[in-house]
Every structure is written in C-alpha cells, then in structure tokens.
C-alpha cells in the first residue's frame, strides 16, 4: 500500500499513537469514553472504549511492523546487490 520510501506510515502511526494516548490516558477518556451507557455485549461503554483502543493499537502496531519489515528486507536486498555490483 505504501512505498518503502514513503514517510506517511511514520506520520500515521505516530499520529494514531498520540491520539490513543490522549483517548486512554489523557482527558480524551473523560470526554468521550467516560459514560457507563450504552452497554455493549454486556460491558459498560467506559470499558468498551478502552478495549476498542486496545484492538486499534494492536492492529496499527501490526501494520506498522509489517511495513517496517518490508523496508528492512528491501534495504538488505539493495545492500546485497550493491556488494555484488561494485
């Protein structure tokens, strides 16, 4: 989806992590996630809020790591071909 030279994944990941911090540790929790109702699958919204962020942070970490690994592999390949063709 993103090229290995693109800086966008870095910005997207950093932005998402910052928003997550505001929403689960900072005042965002008190503003948007504090209410007990509605109950979702029997759980109060205040707990569901944290669980949704947990899923979201996990997915973003997975995607970011996938992209980081892709960059690493490409760099290693470039270095290897550079060694072969001086």
């Amino acid at each position, binding site marked *: 989806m993103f090229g290995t030279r693109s800086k966008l994944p870095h910005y997207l990941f950093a932005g998402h992590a910052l928003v997550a911090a505001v929403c689960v540790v900072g005042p965002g929790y008190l503003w948007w996630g504090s209410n007990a*109702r509605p109950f979702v699958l029997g759980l109060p919204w205040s707990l569901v809020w944290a669980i949704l962020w947990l899923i979201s942070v996990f997915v973003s970490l997975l995607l970011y790591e996938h992209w980081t690994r892709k960059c690493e592999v490409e760099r290693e390949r470039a270095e290897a071909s550079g060694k072969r063709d001086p």
Partner: protein
Amino acid sequence: MSTDAWIISGVSVLYLLGCLWVGMRGGKGATDSAVGYVAGDRALGPVLMYFITGATVFSAFSFLATPGLAYTSGAAVFYVLGYGLVGFIPFYFLGPIAAKLGRERGYITQGEMIAGACEHRWLAGTMALVSALSFIPYLALQVKGAGLVVNRLTEGQVPEWLGGAVCYVVVLAYVLKSGVLGVGWTNVFQGVLMMALAWAFGLWLPYKLYGGVGNMFEAIAAAKPEIEGDAATRFLSVPGGRTGQWFVTSGLISMVGFTCWPHLFMKAFSARDDRTLRRTVVFYPTFMVFLVPIFLIGFAGVLFPNPPPNPEQILPHMLMSLDLPALVVGLFCAGALAAGMSTGDAIVHASASILVRDGWITALKRPMSSTAERRAVRILIVILMVASYALAVWYEGDLVRLLLYAYGPVAQFLPGLLVSLLGRRRDGVAVHVGLIVGVVTCVALKYEPSWSPYGVHEGLWGLALNVATLLVVALARGWRPFSPAGGNSARA
C-alpha cells in the same frame, strides 16, 4: 490446619516446586559471564521476550490491587489498561536504538547507557540509587501480595510473613542460580498459568454470582444509580470513585514510568535482534487483554453480601466464601503467587545488576572481572531481597499507594533517556541536575501531599521541574538550540 488448608497449601507448594525446577534449569546454556547472567548473552528469542515483558508487568498489583480498585472505585480501575496499552509503544523505537548502543559499547543497563552517551559517570550512580529506592517498595509489594494471598486462603493459618518468605526463598534460589534466563523461563510458566486462571475466574465468578457478565453490570448499574452531574454517584463511568485529576495524572505518570522502568528497559540489551524487540512491543497488547477478566473479578465483588476486611482481599475473600473445592482455591493461590513472583524475580535481578554495573563499576570507576561482577550481583540480590521483605512486613498501607510511590521517581529518567538516545547535544550535567531536582520534588510531595497543587500526581510535578531544570542548566552552560551550529558541545 484443616484438610482444605492442607490441600491449598499443597497445590501452592507444587506450584513453587514447579517454579524452582523451571528456574533452576532455565540458566543452562548461558555463558559464565556477567553478560550471560544479566543479559542472557544478548540472545533472548521472541517467546522469552514476550513473557518476560508481559509477566514482569503483571504483578501482585494486577491480581490483588486491581480487583480491589474495581471493587472500591469502579471505573477508576480502567486507567491501568490505558497506561499499559500506550506505555510500551516508545520502546518500539527506543529499544532498537538502545540495543545497537549496547552491542557496540557493551552496555547491559539503562543507567550505564545514559551515563555513557552523556559522558557523565555520576549520572549512572544517581540512577542506580533512584532505581534501588524505587525497586524496594515495588518488590515489597510483591512479597506483601504473596503473603496476603497465602494467609487469606489458608484462613489465617499460614501467617503473611511466612507465606511471603517461602515464596521469595524460591525466587532467590532460581535467580541466584540462573540469572535472567531463570527469570525468563519461570515467567513463561507463570505467565501461562496466571492468564489461564484469570480468564477462568473472571468469566466464572460473574456467571456464578449474577448469571453472566451483562447481568452483573446491569445489577451494579441498578444498585448504584448515577445522577448526571453528581460526581459522588459515579461508579461505572470514568473516573468512577476517584477524581478526574487522579485518573489522568495517575495514568500519565504510570505511562511515563512504564517506558522508563529499568528492569523492562534493560531487556533491550537481552533481545536476540531488533526484530525480536519490535515484535515484543507489537504483541504486547495481547497480554493487556488479561486485565479484562481481572476487572470482571473486582466488579463481581461489588454487590457481594459480606465485605472483605480489606478491599485488596476481595478475590480471595469471594473464593473463600463460595464454598469452592479446595483444589480450585489452591489453583487460584498458585496464579496469584505466579503474578507476584514473575515481577519480583525480574526486579530483584535487575536492581542488583544495576547497583553493581551503574553504581560500583560505572559511577565509582571500580572495574571488575566478569566473575567478580557476577558474584557481587548475587550478594546484592540477597541484600535487596531482605530489605524488601522487611519493608513488606512493616508496611501496612494499601498496595496501589505503594506502586504509585515507585512510579514517580522512575519517571524522572525520561528526559535523560530521550536526550541520550535521540539528542544531538548531550549535556550530562544538565541531565543529572534535572534528575536530582525531579526526584527530590517527587519524594517531597509524596511525603507532604498538601504541597502538590490541583491534585496532580507528584511524579508529574517532578517531571515538569526536571525538564525545566535541564533546559535552564543546559542554556546556562552554553547550549543554543536555534543557533546554526546546533549549540555548543557542553559535556561534563
């Protein structure tokens, strides 16, 4: 003792023997050097790293104090999930940078790395002292938790001091013998056990007492109706029975402290490679899910007919009141001990390593042979364990307070960590003075809470003064942030 007490004690002893066996065998394969004992020869794979970080963080606090907080203050407890979730993300970036420095320059502790990067050896000494002073209460918390569980589940027949002592003699044995690898393999065993038991009790208790999780929350909402705008009636809405300032600032300081915990951070020097480190962070949220059943256990106690003598005993209290088979209660006992011991072993191992490496070798410039260093670490492990045990027996306050005490001073490492890993100009004197000011502020406000304005956690005030002092001292020593040259080369 009654038959039940014998069965419960028997299951716990079996668990302790299991830990001892795993821990004693765990160290096989490591070289007979300080790097082997402290950093596992920098060769820990993804499974060990996952459990070593996960189980280290989930402690007696998670198994006892977290349900206790849910029981007394309702949704206030959700701050634990919040800070744990984001507190480890910085490690994704900082961990590989630190690991590279470690490989290049031989670092195995956080303080040694910061002092080396800032070229200011006394910084390592101060960090070693602060770490030890923060670790002792944290370790005491684990000992206290272990003693409390054993005492409650054996109906007071095994005293708290004895329960704590037996568990930590086992920890002492495998940490002394096997070092970080013993800690790692026991953490795998303990992590699996406590996760399985937390889910089992977290789902079963609401079902047994209310007919299901949904019914439980509906019953709590009906019994504790919340009136819009009336903070005193809050329970299931955040921040529950605590103030908004408490919720946000406790979460923030815990998040910062989590990033800086020396025993977690130094695992950057133990990982096999950068990918292993990054994957540890990526999969860390899966360990956080384990907090959800722990919350459910605490909420299950809210409408429980007879209250426990102490909120932190809500889970053992419920189990003892439900006439469960002794085997089930014994298994819970093993799970709670696993939670406390998996943190205690990592802490005692790290704090002794830090005191020797940062305090003695780096700050006091007393080089040692690898064998002598290993021996010194082992002696300090025994001393620290005894000191923590004494504090656990003497201290009678609640566990959360003890944990929050530990987070404040450790959080003061953040500026030094960022400057050493990411800064272009590293003024060791400025970092050192900032650290001292931060820690002194934090400790002073802890002992005199009325000096702490707006109900903000004392660690955050300490951090604010720490950063301000660092900037002022760095500027006074010639740092010019906006000059084309990027400032001077102020170094200690």
